[in-house]
């Protein structure tokens, strides 16, 4: 069953075609990577999936709900994390998580906060204002917020951006474990190709608002004759003809 299904998804801003008629589906329990250069349409796509942006055309169904008509039913069962969307800086970590516990109507919010704090190594930070945390700590708090309602669908926009390799690895390991334990479906936009290779079973390559290629990381590597996804990314971004790739 497809947990996320987008058909003919389009977003135009005047003459600019940010996303131009893309189709894709994500099956239950899959982790799919959304790759592309800056301005490829990744963030616009994620914003449309979240209901933050109304598409110019096309349809989105998440967990069987039509996002144009019934987005709140889907939003209660999904969540989102991005280093580019902040949490209130003056609230403590616990207060921030409590706010979202209420917004997502999470049962036993306090127990859930303690549980997440333990798993994401946030216990000592719970009473500290979010604004006083390091980038790595903020990312873990954002992840805790994204998991507060035990989402069935998780949309992640560059979840490990600006993290040191150790913290980045910690977050990736945690995401792998969470997916394995919960069966959560994850759509991940990232510029970190190693991360995508490690986490994603399927990749959508975007360029100028279109999905220009798709497949499993292994499939893409094989078709482009490359050793890593970064080279595949560059081939697509720079329009390097595939026949010249050996």
């Amino acid at each position, binding site marked *: 069953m497809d947990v996320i299904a987008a058909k003919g998804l389009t*977003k135009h*801003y005047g003459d600019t075609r940010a996303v131009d008629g893309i189709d894709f589906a994500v099956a239950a329990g899959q982790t799919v990577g959304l790759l592309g250069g800056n301005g490829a349409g990744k*963030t*616009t796509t994620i*914003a449309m999936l*979240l*209901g*933050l*942006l*109304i598409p110019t055309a096309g349809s989105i169904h998440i967990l069987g709900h039509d996002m144009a008509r019934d987005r*709140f039913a889907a*939003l*209660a069962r999904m*969540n*989102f994390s*991005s280093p*580019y*969307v*902040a*949490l*209130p*800086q*003056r*609230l*403590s970590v616990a*207060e921030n998580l*409590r*706010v*979202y*516990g*209420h*917004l*997502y*109507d999470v049962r036993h919010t306090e127990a859930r906060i303690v549980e997440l704090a333990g798993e994401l190594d946030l216990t000592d930070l719970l009473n500290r204002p979010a604004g006083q945390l390091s980038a790595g700590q903020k990312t873990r708090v954002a992840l805790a*917020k994204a998991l507060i309602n035990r989402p069935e669908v998780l949309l992640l926009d560059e979840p490990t951006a600006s993290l040191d390799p150790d913290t980045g690895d910690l977050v990736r390991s945690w995401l792998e474990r969470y997916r394995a334990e919960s069966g959560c479906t994850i759509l991940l936009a990232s510029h970190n190709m190693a991360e995508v290779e490690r986490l994603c079973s399927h990749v959508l390559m975007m360029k100028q608002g279109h999905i220009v290629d798709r497949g499993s990381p292994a499939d893409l590597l094989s078709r482009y004759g490359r050793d890593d996804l970064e080279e595949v990314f560059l081939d697509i971004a720079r329009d390097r003809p595939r026949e010249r790739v050996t």
Partner: protein
Amino acid sequence: MIRPALRRIWGLMYRHLALYRRSWPRLLELAYWPTLTMCIWGLTASFFGARLGSAGAVAFGMLLGGVLLWEVALRSQMGVAISFLEEIWSRNLGHVFVSPLRPWELVAALIVLSVVRMAVGVLPAVLLAWALYAFNLFTLGPVLILFAINLMAMGWWVSLGVVSLILRHGAGAEALAWSVLFALTPFSAVYYPVSVLPAWLRPLALALPSAHVFEGMRTLLQTGTIAWGHMAWAFGLNALWLGGAGLLFMLEFRSARERGAFLTMGE
């Protein structure tokens, strides 16, 4: 259906109340302007009141009553608009609007917050007016509650208009959160009757619920009777303006989702 909605409303309220809990300057700031305004007008009114005899005493009551009740509208309006701006300043809108929080729940949370902010801001001024000038606003009787409800409602629809403009023009329109109700002060007959205004401005004044509230307050202070006609006009106009502002908010909210404003707001 109701319990999750109430919980979401409480969630957004908690986010703002937690800020006040950990910041006494923020709490103090709520009461600062209403108290300062009341002190200045109280001194002015007592100066003239002492020189004008019994007529001065009535004028003194009208002036201080006007000052204190107008603060109800002002604080109510700012309570909604500034709470919304806090979400923009903290760049948190992206999280709030991808949660299951409905737009009407957001508005409900902002309105309840505005009542709290208004109470914390205006009550110290009311108590100080009683302590310093022996002016007890509560002598107006239970009808004071109806005056306050109308002025709070006016603050809500004005702020819904302000929030709609912020949704349309971004944080660049934030100055309106502080200034827009001040622009309506001359037409609201806060300190003088509507009849003082030029004839061509009176219809504008009478289209505002506040003018009817303050005409009603003056009638009560002068004659001891309640002007139910003015009260009915105030409630009716508030219902109309609230309906219009609510519609405008919903249209601008949708327009902001179409334009992608929530992705960039706060930058």
